[in-house]
Each structure stands twice: as structure tokens, then as C-alpha cells.
């Protein structure tokens, strides 16, 4: 049966997505390398023209220096599928070698539609599955969050697929369909290796659930079943590569985890990048030392929230741990891209389903955080020519967020039409007022920095002044949020509503 609320939400979401897709993509009109758009097109070209054992290998036909595949096999399979369709629509799109750097309105429309189709097939059903039959704030926010729209439909990527699978896995695991959840998460992981950011909480939550089983046999059998589904999924996805031989398989691993890359590329709102302003890490430590530092910091800082989940495996703690762990990974790990902040934003939105809607989290922390995630990507988006859609989609998001109650309550029963006298509202405490004030000041600062970045050319001595400032500003905020989110996770005094979700 058609659920009008969801139909409306998704069609509005499609309007936003399609509108953004009218704007330039990454690397548009910038030969010879172009950008992520060309990378995705190139992978279609490689996967449909070459045999599987050459996809990740440097061969005569496959020049790995020109956008070599560096995502796990599921991305390759997806590129293969899309490539097959592309070939039938217009064979010049995927002509081996000849189609490099192809740019035409038809091709752009095709590529943009492929992202929309991916969202329709995976992300939207994931949202529906997570949120149940009545529209909730979570569904609305997931559907209109500008960060995901701008990166997927503007810059050009397919994060909707991996994040959609991730959302499905979280929903399944919360509902105690652990096998489905494990399979979905493994699929997400096999689509983009960055999903490793979410791996620890899954591991500890599932382990915690196993340990809480009543009998020893149950514990072992549950562990066994989950283990089998994880291994089974990996084998199913990697089988063609296993069959092609150990060299090919290892080569895939090498491409996915390039350990010889630097600590960071460009400017990222990451702890190390910010520290670098004062203390030049690259000059004082060598690569392996830096690597060790990153791993140590990341794992150590992830420990608190994950041990908490292990000890008290509830959905609330699980989702908060997802948020905290991914934020720790973003801030402290190796070779982080600014786009990976999306991996933190999505769990943050999911947290609205396990926290009270009147809590400080939903009223202050979350909108503040989400807007800053978009702000942290401004240098990237401006480089792509996406400043106007960034502003438009973010302002739209803010207005919708401000009227969240009205949007979501329209799906509640029509019987509350009678205007009742308003309930007495407690005046905000001093801390809440301070929070609100800080939020406003901070966002004004963000707007100012964006304006300066756009309008004022940087001094010759510091050509990267604005991106650096934007990154530093964002990362300092993210550190603050890290603290706040940890406090929220560990405070169980807040009223918790985990509504039974109807499928």
C-alpha cells in the first residue's frame, strides 16, 4: 500500500537531489585528470572491457595511475552493472581508452540518473526500513541532509549505496535480526572500506549481545552464526578474486589499503591536520611512526564508547557508539578525506531515533554538528562550483529542521485538530541558553569564513589560508562534539524512547 507520507518525503528528496545534479560535477571541464566523476566512469570502462583479473592490476590496458580502482569488489561489480547499461545507452560512454574524459550533456544525465537510481533502490528503502511506517524526524533528516546530497549528486559519488546498506544493518541489528544486519554491514564494508569506521561498534555490540545470552550454548551458537554469515558474505563477494589467484587477491587488498600514502591529502578537518599548523608532524616523524601514532590514538580513544557497548549492549548505546567511534576515526586516523565526515553524520542522524526528541542533542547539538559537517566540506564544494547549491540546500535544511515538529506531526492522527492550550514550557536552564548562544555565534563564524573564502583573496604568503582556517575551525568544533557526544552516551539518566518499530 502506498504510504503517502513517505511518497511525499522521497519525492521532495528527489527534487533536491535532481536540482543539485544540474550543477557541475567534480572535475567538470578540467582535463586531463578531471575528478571523481571521471573515476567512476573509468571504472565502468575498465570493468566491462577487461577480464576480472585485470581490474585491480596495472596492465597495458589498465593504467592504475589514471584513477585505478581503490574500492573493494562490490564497487567494481556495481561499476560493471552500470557500465553494461551505459554501453547499451551509448557505447561511446565506455569505449576502452577512447572514452577517457568524455563530457557531454547526455553522459552527464546518464551518470546523474545512475546515482538517483542507486538512491531509489538502496537508500530510500533503507530509510523506510529503519524508520517504520510512520514518518519520523530520522527519516526526514536522512532524506534531506545536504552533505550526502551535495557529495553524491553534486561532487559525484555513490555513498548512498554504502550508507544505505549501513542503515539497513543498523536497523536489522537493533531489531535483533543479527544475521541480516551482519550480512548488510559486510556488504557495506565490501562496497567502501571506509565503513571500517563503523566496524568496532558492530563487533562489540554483537559480542555484547552474545555474551548476554542466557546459556553458554546460546552464546556460542549465536557467535558462530554471526561469524558464519560474516565469513560467508566475504567469501561470496571475493570468490571471483580468490579463483583468479592469490596474487590478484593480494593486489586488491593493496589497492584498498594503500599504506604508502601520506597522512592526509589537501586540508581535512582532522586532528593531525590541525596540529600540523603548529607542530609539523611530517618533518619530525617518519611515515611508520606517524602510522603507529594514528593507530594508537584511534584505537585508544575508541575504547571507552565500545567497552560501554560491550558491557551494556542496548540500541541506544550502540548508535551513540557508532557516532563516537566514527568521529574518533575521522579525527585521528590515517589518510582521511573530508568526504568521510558523512560516515559520522549518518549515525548522528540515526541517534535521533534512540534519544528523546526534546533532549539537548536533537535541539542543539545535532543541527549544529550537521551544519558544521557541511561547512567542513566547503573548500571541496567551492572547488567543484557548488557554492550556490550548498547554501540553498543547507538553508532549506535549517528551515525544515526548525519546523521539524510541524513536518513530522502532520502524519499523526487528524484528531488533534482542536487547539489545546499550550503546555507549560520550562524556561531553559543557563547551560542550555549558553549552548544555544554558542551555537549561533559558531554558525555566524562559519558563515563569515565561507564569505571570506569566497570573496577575499588570501595573502600571497598564505595561499591556503581560508581552507586551513575552515578546517581548523571545523576540527576544533568536532573535538568539542566528541566530548559532548561521549557525555551523552555515558549519561543514562536521560529519558530514552526506543519505540517498537513496525515494519
Amino acid at each position: 500500500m502506498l504510504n503517502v507520507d513517505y511518497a511525499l518525503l522521497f519525492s521532495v528528496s528527489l527534487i533536491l537531489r535532481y536540482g543539485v545534479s544540474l550543477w557541475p560535477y567534480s572535475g567538470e571541464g578540467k582535463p586531463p585528470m578531471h575528478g571523481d566523476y571521471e573515476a567512476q566512469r573509468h571504472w565502468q570502462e575498465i570493468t566491462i572491457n577487461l577480464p576480472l583479473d585485470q581490474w585491480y592490476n596495472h596492465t597495458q590496458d589498465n593504467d592504475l595511475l589514471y584513477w585505478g580502482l581503490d574500492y573493494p569488489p562490490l564497487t567494481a561489480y556495481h561499476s560493471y552493472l552500470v557500465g553494461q547499461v551505459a554501453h547499451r545507452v551509448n557505447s561511446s560512454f565506455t569505449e576502452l581508452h577512447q572514452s577517457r574524459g568524455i563530457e557531454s550533456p547526455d553522459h552527464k544525465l546518464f551518470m546523474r540518473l545512475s546515482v538517483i537510481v542507486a538512491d531509489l533502490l538502496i537508500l530510500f528503502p533503507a530509510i523506510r526500513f529503519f524508520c517504520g511506517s510512520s514518518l519520523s524526524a530520522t527519516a526526514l533528516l536522512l532524506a534531506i541532509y545536504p552533505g550526502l546530497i551535495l557529495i553524491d549528486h553534486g561532487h559525484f559519488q555513490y555513498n548512498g549505496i554504502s550508507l544505505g546498506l549501513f542503515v539497513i544493518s543498523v536497523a536489522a541489528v537493533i531489531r535483533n535480526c543479527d544475521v541480516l544486519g551482519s550480512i548488510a554491514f559486510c556488504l557495506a564494508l565490501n562496497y567502501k572500506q571506509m565503513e571500517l569506521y563503523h566496524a568496532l561498534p558492530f563487533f562489540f555490540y554483537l559480542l555484547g549481545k552474545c555474551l548476554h545470552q542466557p546459556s553458554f550454548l546460546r552464546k556460542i551458537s549465536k557467535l558462530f552464526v554471526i561469524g558464519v554469515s560474516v565469513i560467508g558474505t566475504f567469501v561470496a563477494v571475493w570468490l571471483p578474486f580468490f579463483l583468479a589467484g592469490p596474487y590478484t587477491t593480494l593486489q586488491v587488498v593493496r589497492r584498498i589499503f594503500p599504506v604508502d600514502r601520506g597522512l592526509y591529502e589537501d586540508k581535512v578537518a582532522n586532528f593531525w591536520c590541525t596540529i600540523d599548523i603548529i607542530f609539523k608532524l611530517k618533518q619530525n616523524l617518519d611515515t611508520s611512526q606517524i602510522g603507529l601514532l594514528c593507530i594508537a590514538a584511534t584505537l585508544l580513544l575508541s575504547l571507552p564508547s565500545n567497552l560501554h557497548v560491550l558491557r551494556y549492549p542496548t540500541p541506544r548505546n550502540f548508535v551513540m557508539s557508532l557516532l563516537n567511534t566514527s568521529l574518533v576515526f575521522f579525527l585521528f586516523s590515517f589518510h582521511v578525506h573530508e568526504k568521510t565526515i558523512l560516515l559520522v553524520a549518518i549515525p548522528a542522524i540515526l541517534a535521533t531515533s534512540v534519544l528523546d526528541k526534546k533532549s539537548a542533542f536533537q535541539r542543539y547539538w545535532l543541527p549544529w554538528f550537521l551544519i558544521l559537517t557541511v561547512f567542513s566540506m566547503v573548500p571541496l564544494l567551492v572547488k567543484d562550483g557548488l557554492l550556490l547549491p550548498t547554501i540553498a540546500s543547507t538553508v532549506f535544511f535549517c528551515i525544515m529542521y526548525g519546523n521539524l515538529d510541524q513536518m513530522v506531526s502532520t502524519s499523526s492522527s487528524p484528531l488533534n485538530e482542536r487547539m489545546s492550550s499550550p503546555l507549560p514550557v520550562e524556561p531553559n536552564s543557563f547551560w542550555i541558553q549558553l549552548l544555544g548562544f554558542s551555537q549561533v555565534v559558531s554558525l555566524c563564524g562559519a558563515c563569515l569564513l565561507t564569505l571570506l573564502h569566497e570573496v577575499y583573496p588570501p595573502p600571497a604568503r598564505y595561499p591556503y589560508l581560508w581552507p586551513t582556517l575552515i578546517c581548523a575551525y571545523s576540527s576544533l568544533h568536532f573535538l568539542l562534539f566528541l566530548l559532548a557526544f561521549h557525555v551523552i552516551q555515558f549519561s543514562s539518566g536521560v529519558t530514552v524512547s526506543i519505540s517498537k518499530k513496525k515494519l
Partner: protein
Amino acid sequence: MLIAGFLALACVKLLYLPSYKSTDFEVHRNWLAITSSLGVQSWYHEATSQWTLDYPPFFAWFEFALSKVAVHFDPEMLVIKNLGYSSDKTILFQRLSVIVTDFVFAVGAWTCMKNMHNLKSVQARGPSRDAAIYTLLLTNAGLFMVDHIHFQYNGFLFGFLLLSIGAMMQEQYLLGSLWFCVLLNLKHIYMYIAPAYFIFLLRAYCFNNSAFSITRLVKLGSLVILTFVVSFGPFVNQIPQVISRLFPFKRGLCHAYWAPNFWAVYNLVDKALTIIGKKFGGDMIKIPTATDLNGTQASMTGGLVQDIEHIVLPSVPPLATFIITFLFMVPCLIKLWRRPNSVNFMRSLTLCGWSSFLFGWHVHEKAVLIMILPMTLLAVISRKEAKYFLLLAITGHFSLFPLLYPHQELYTKMFLHIAWAFLAVKMLKKVHKCDLLTLAEKIYLLASVIIFIYSEFIHFYLPPNLAKYEFLPLLAYSAYSALGVISTYVSPDRKR
């Protein structure tokens, strides 16, 4: 809520900045150039571009005011000789000007929403009604498609109409008339709904407590005359030229794309009869030679704008359309005379727009908005009107699809249309607390999907001998939509 709603919509409109724009974009750029570069005496004589000024003087002044801002974006757009100029800054400015002037529409919608509270005959009450009026007006998909993609200033113009209706709801008759006169001097096509104003003002205002008040008539008359004097005053020496620009009658019975009105069906029937007549020999029906047949057939349906000669059915001169249009307005005007309240006024307004759409001369498909927008206000009043509104609006918006023909805009119009349709169904269901459409009506609306799939996809893949009938998709749209529009027109009339 006024500002928040307007801003949120403005953001969505901003996203569609890079969309296709029609020749109307160049039309308005040309008018910016004319009004900023030339003196007032040349505005209606300038003919460097084929898109000569054919709106009344207030709109010319509006373009003049816009040009003062335009000069800060890109002064090159104000050079008349730069035909077809569309730099990035030009596009940004023009699109922004439509988005910003839509604020008049938002204020008008807000006024109507607020003043609805005063009406006694209104059934539904409560915040859901307010939300429905304001939201459905502001987010109207047809307006979005025509104004922000195709490019026009209808939001701005309809804003004045809404302000006028809002004033009438408050029984501020003079203010309402003022807004309407301003509107007429901005775009004279609103002349079509003037009869409703005339009757309403005469009966409700001039007949003060059933006693005819000369003072009021004089007040009203002077207001109207004053407005027109201010508008046409600077052009007093060139009135014939202005008139000839405003009323170009050389155009044909139907526009290039047939608006889904009565004449479209008339043409279709004529064509069908011709084909049948051709098949069964031609003694009874005078059929011209094959070449004549091909010539006139092609010109009628080939998408060009020309005078149309009908072959089987009698040809239709402009005067006939006027008379028929007016005849169909009479029933609602009589009802308005008998009971001159604001709701009946809105109904007459809508029905006048309806009959002018169905029977008028050279009607643009965009004129469907003149029915849909005022009817949005009626939709919250009763269930019957809500149902007719849904049928009319959804079909009407669908009939606008051929306007946005590029492939890229296929998805734009689809998403906009579908989203608004769901929004309208949901909000009106909440207002009236019941399901508004019957199964048959839902099936009719869903049938549009078939027409859509055919016209946008299948038609291009037909074998060559059929593909030459390129008018067929447009014809399909017209015929299907005409069915919807006409049937909803006929039904409410019977209820009266």
C-alpha cells in the same frame, strides 16, 4: 511561517537555476534593455528584436526598475543589440528576480490565508486549513515549472490577484479594486476575469444595503480611471501603437501547442472527421485536393502558429469565441449578483477564468494557472470543491509538461509534479478528513502515466513512417488534459 515558507521555497528554486530556459528569458532581457536604454516614447515602438513589448505600461515600469539592479550584475544584458545574450550573471540576475518578486505572491497567499478566518460560509477550520492554503499556493508545481524554469513572472502577477481577493474578503472593496487595476495594467490577460469583479463590485459595493449609492460608484470609478491614467498617461500620444502591441489578433485560434481546451477537442474532431471523410469518398463533405489537405492539416497540427481553417466543422472567428466565452460566464455571474459574498466572488472568478480558458481565442496552456491558483482557496471550503481542485490541478500541471521539452527537464517536471500531487492529496485529506477522490478519478489520474511514458519515451522509438507525426505526443497531452479540464468544468456548473 510566512518568511520561513518563502525562504525554503526560494532555496529549492535556487537549485534549479541551471535549468532550461525558454525564449521568454530573452523576451524579458530584451524588455530590460528597452526600458533602460530608451526613452519612454520609444518603448512601444522599438522593434530591433522580434520580442516587442506587449504588456501594459506598469510591467514596462517594472522592467525599468529591475534594470536598475541588473546593471550591477552585468551591464551587457541591457544593450538592446545583444540579442540572445545570456551570460552566467544574466541568468543569475533574471532567475533571482523571479525568486525575489515571488515575495509578492507569498504576501498575497498569506493575506488570503489570514482573511479566510472572517468568512462565515467556510466549512473547514483549524491550522490544517491555514497550512493547506499557504503551502499549496506557494509550492504550486505549475507555477514553479512556468516561472522558475520556463521563465516568467506569473508569481509576481498572481500575487496582486491574491492581494485583491484578500482585500475583498475583508470587504475592503476599494483596496481590492486598486490591486486588480494594478494587475490589469501589469498584464491585460486578466481582463478575462474582470466581469466577476464588475458584477461583484456593482452589487456588493455600489448597492449599499440594496440602495444604489452614487457616491460609491463615483469613488470606485475615479479610482479605476485614475489607475489607468497613471499607467497610460506617459503614453497618451501613442495609444493606438500601444493598443496594437497589446492586442495582436493575427495569431490563430490555437497556440502552437494546443492548450487543452474546447477548441483543441474541436480541432481533433474536425481532423478525425476529415480523415473519415477522406476514407469514405467525398461527395457529401467538400474536401479540398490532397495537397490542400496536407497543407492545412500540417499547419494546424504541426506546431506552428497560424490562422486555422477547419475543413469539416465550421471555422471559428475571434468574435465567436468571445461570445461563447461570455455566454458561459453568465450563469455564475447571475449567482454572484444574487448572493454577493466573497466565496461566491472567488467562485465566479475561477469560473470566469475557466470559461475563458476553455473557449478563448489563442489561449496559452500557461493560462491553466488562472483557474488553478484561485481555486486553491476554494479547495478548503468544501469537499466537492476540493475534489474538483485536485482533478483540475493535477491534470492542469500535467498539461504543462510539453512546455519543458528538453530531456534533462523530464525528471524535473516529473518530480515536481508528483511531489505536489502527493502534498495536495495529503493536505486536503487532512482538512476535510476523508478520502477525496473516487476510484474512477484515481484511475483517470494514473492514466496520465501512460500518456507520459508514450510521449516521452516510446514515441521516439517508433518506426520512421509513424514517427513523422511528431504532433502526436502533444496532441495526446492536450486531448487527455482537455478531458480532465472540461469534465470538471461541467460538473460544478450543474451543481449550481
